[in-house]
């Protein structure tokens, strides 16, 4: 029976999986068959999917010339040599705090966009969303659109049904393996590792991690889908603290839609709402919910219901945007005959922006002014001092110089704070100015034993603070470190 009353629209028989009156604490999962939609937001989602997956799969293959002896992979987590490379940035283990900074930036950035436009992260860029979308796309390509999938699942098992299902799972598995496979390229030289993988010569851990990521991608993106967002992810619970009355959210404009009812083609729209209760929005929803019930925890704000409904509105010749980015406060204003301007600049968005700017500038400053040479000085404590035959005294120090430059560099070690000292170091030359001269290979650390000697007439009693200084030949790259000199005699 055609229920579309003359409109070219399917009136669907679909129910929200989370309907209030049938909501219970324990419930078997209801299958969801998201219907294909076309429209602005669907296109944005395709684009975001292409970009994010593109970045994910291609990034490890981007090359970046760092010169001799350094990996030429743009993004590389090099565990073996304890380095993290990101294009022109190179982080040493001592600098992992930059990662902390990045996480802070990511968190605040997430707060900011959430305050502005709700769960846009969930709806467009979350890996769970992106991969689920990809898996659903595959499912649709193999098994057909919503109605065909429902029909297929109801059918008894047959060869054609089995082959479709098997085919779908095979493609899913290929995607899952490719996902896990791409991940490991971030941790080793991609072309080399790829060759090893195919020759079955790659390290065992590489296969293990491909396995782990293939498994999680397949089960979370292919099998569990919306269950992850609803039951496993903490973010829906946190988001309520991030949004306020003025945040934009995918909203059913009930002021325009109600009272909803079926509509006969040509009939008047007076005295009724624009919603023709076709349930296209419910059928399109990958979370299986009904946006017309209001803002809900399950809604990932993917805006596919907007596309679905706009399609319907165009066909019944009503203005688009029955479902759109809006909020309940604005609807309330409109009902009172007022307009509420969208205010992106609010206390909380300003606060988030300021934090973002501050943390970002601190990191940038740190990155730009980061010393190119690291210096550490450890004073010998066993013995703390050595009395010499002429009555002088000597202290030993372990001086560690970290050369963050790519090329070998000559450094000059001197000390300040004690007149009359002589520096010496085993098997290292001393400059005319009495500095220890040492070559440190590029991208390396060298520990040097340095002796500081004071003649008898300058010998101090007890401890005297001194400062070690390291500089290059031009005096441009310098570092200092405080230490003490023990005179020994009281």
């Amino acid at each position, binding site marked *: 029976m055609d229920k579309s009353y003359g409109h070219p629209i399917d009136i669907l028989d679909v129910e929200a999986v989370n309907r209030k009156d049938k909501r*219970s*604490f*324990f419930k078997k999962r209801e299958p969801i068959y998201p219907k294909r939609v076309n429209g602005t937001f669907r296109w944005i989602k395709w684009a975001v999917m292409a970009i994010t997956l593109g970045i994910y799969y291609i990034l490890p293959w981007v090359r970046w010339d760092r010169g001799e002896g350094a990996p030429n992979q743009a993004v590389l987590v090099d565990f073996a040599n304890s380095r993290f490379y990101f294009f022109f940035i190179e982080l040493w283990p001592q600098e992992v705090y930059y990662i902390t900074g990045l996480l802070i930036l990511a968190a605040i950035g997430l707060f900011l966009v959430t305050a502005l436009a709700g769960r846009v992260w969930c709806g467009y860029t979350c890996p769970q969303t992106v991969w689920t979308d990809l898996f659903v796309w595959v499912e649709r390509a193999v098994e057909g659109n919503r109605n065909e999938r429902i029909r297929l699942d109801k059918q008894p098992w047959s060869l054609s049904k089995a082959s479709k299902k098997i085919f779908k799972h095979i493609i899913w598995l290929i995607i899952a393996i490719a996902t896990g496979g791409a991940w490991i390229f971030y941790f080793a030289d991609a072309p080399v590792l790829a060759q090893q993988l195919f020759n079955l010569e790659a390290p065992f851990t590489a296969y293990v991690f491909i396995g782990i990521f293939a498994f999680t991608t397949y089960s979370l993106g292919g099998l*569990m889908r919306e269950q992850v967002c609803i039951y496993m992810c903490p973010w829906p619970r946190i988001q309520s603290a991030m949004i306020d009355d003025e945040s934009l959210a995918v909203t059913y404009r009930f002021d325009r839609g109600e009272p909803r009812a079926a509509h006969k083609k040509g009939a008047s729209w007076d005295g009724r709402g624009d919603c023709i209760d076709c349930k296209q929005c419910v059928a399109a929803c990958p979370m299986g919910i009904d946006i017309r019930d209001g803002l809900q925890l399950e809604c990932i704000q993917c805006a596919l219901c907007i596309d679905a409904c706009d399609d319907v509105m165009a066909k019944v010749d009503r203005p688009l945007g029955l479902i759109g980015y809006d909020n309940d406060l604005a609807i309330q204003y409109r009902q009172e005959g007022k307009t509420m301007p969208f205010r992106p600049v609010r206390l909380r968005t300003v606060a988030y922006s300021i934090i973002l700017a501050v943390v970002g500038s601190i990191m940038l400053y740190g990155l730009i002014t980061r010393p190119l040479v690291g210096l550490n000085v450890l004073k*010998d*404590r*066993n*013995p703390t001092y*050595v*009395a*010499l*035959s*002429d*009555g002088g005294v*000597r202290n*030993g120090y372990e001086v560690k110089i970290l050369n963050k430059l790519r090329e070998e560099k000559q450094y000059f070690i001197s000390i300040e704070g004690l007149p009359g000292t002589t520096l*010496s170091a*085993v*098997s290292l030359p001393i400059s005319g100015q009495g500095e220890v001269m040492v070559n440190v290979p590029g991208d390396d650390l*060298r*520990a040097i*034993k340095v*002796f500081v000697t004071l003649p008898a007439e300058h010998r101090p009693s007890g401890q005297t603070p001194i400062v070690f200084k390291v500089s290059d030949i031009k005096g441009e790259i310098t570092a200092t470190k405080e230490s003490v000199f023990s005179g020994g005699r009281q």
Partner: protein
Amino acid sequence: MANNREVDSFSGVETTGHEWDGIKELNNPLPRWWLYILYASIIWSVGYWIAMPAWPMVSSYTQGMLGWSQRSNVMAEVEAIKKSREPIKAKLLQASLEEIEATPDLFTFALASGEAAFGDNCAPCHGSGAQGAVGYPNLNDDEWLWGGALSDIEYTITHGIRNENFDSRYSEMPAFLQVGTVDRKELSDLTDYVLLISDQEPSSEAAAARGQGLYVTHCESCHAADGTGDREQGAPSLVDQIWLYGSDRESIQSTIANARNSTMPQWGERLDPSTIKALAVYVHALGGGE
């Protein structure tokens, strides 16, 4: 319980029969994925018991089919490390002591293994930081009884001092008072002279002057006319500020009277040549080496 089954009217789910303050527990099944993980864990653990050491028995434990054990792992790792060090050890053996100091990676290796060998073999006498003690020389300072060059140090370690080895460094300070070479009065004068040349206060100028004659007769041949000692004989300098047995009057007098002839073992028969080389480099690098 079986006969009073109760079905919750709202959800249509059977209850467990448990009730708390009017709230009844529904007998819903666990989520299936949860259950499957539980089963998988059980299967895994059974496999694990079979494969790995697991159950304690009366005097031992079940060994597991894979033959895994922590001890054999450690042994294997120790073997692997020994093996990985072989090439650099071979290089160490080939290189001269000077070459070792001039080659950063050999030097680093020599320092590390020298330090370890020092801790095991030398620290009981010379102290863990080679700082020495009364009767045991401080190896950090710049006074060397038998020479502080790399080769001198290596020789001393290999052959030792005043032991039964034919090649060991050997010399003997006479016990002047004991053998009657000097009497007690002369001993005192001699001590005053030594105090004088080592920049300390003698009991009197006259005593020191008397001691000088005795010094020329008895001591000069080893400790040199100016008191700077003689390394050929391991005779210490008497004019510097380092005293192996103490610089006070009492100690010096006792040394002249009874002599001090301490010994050092010959490590050449206990340690392999590469370890001795590493030790020599380490000791030399302590800062006092020449």
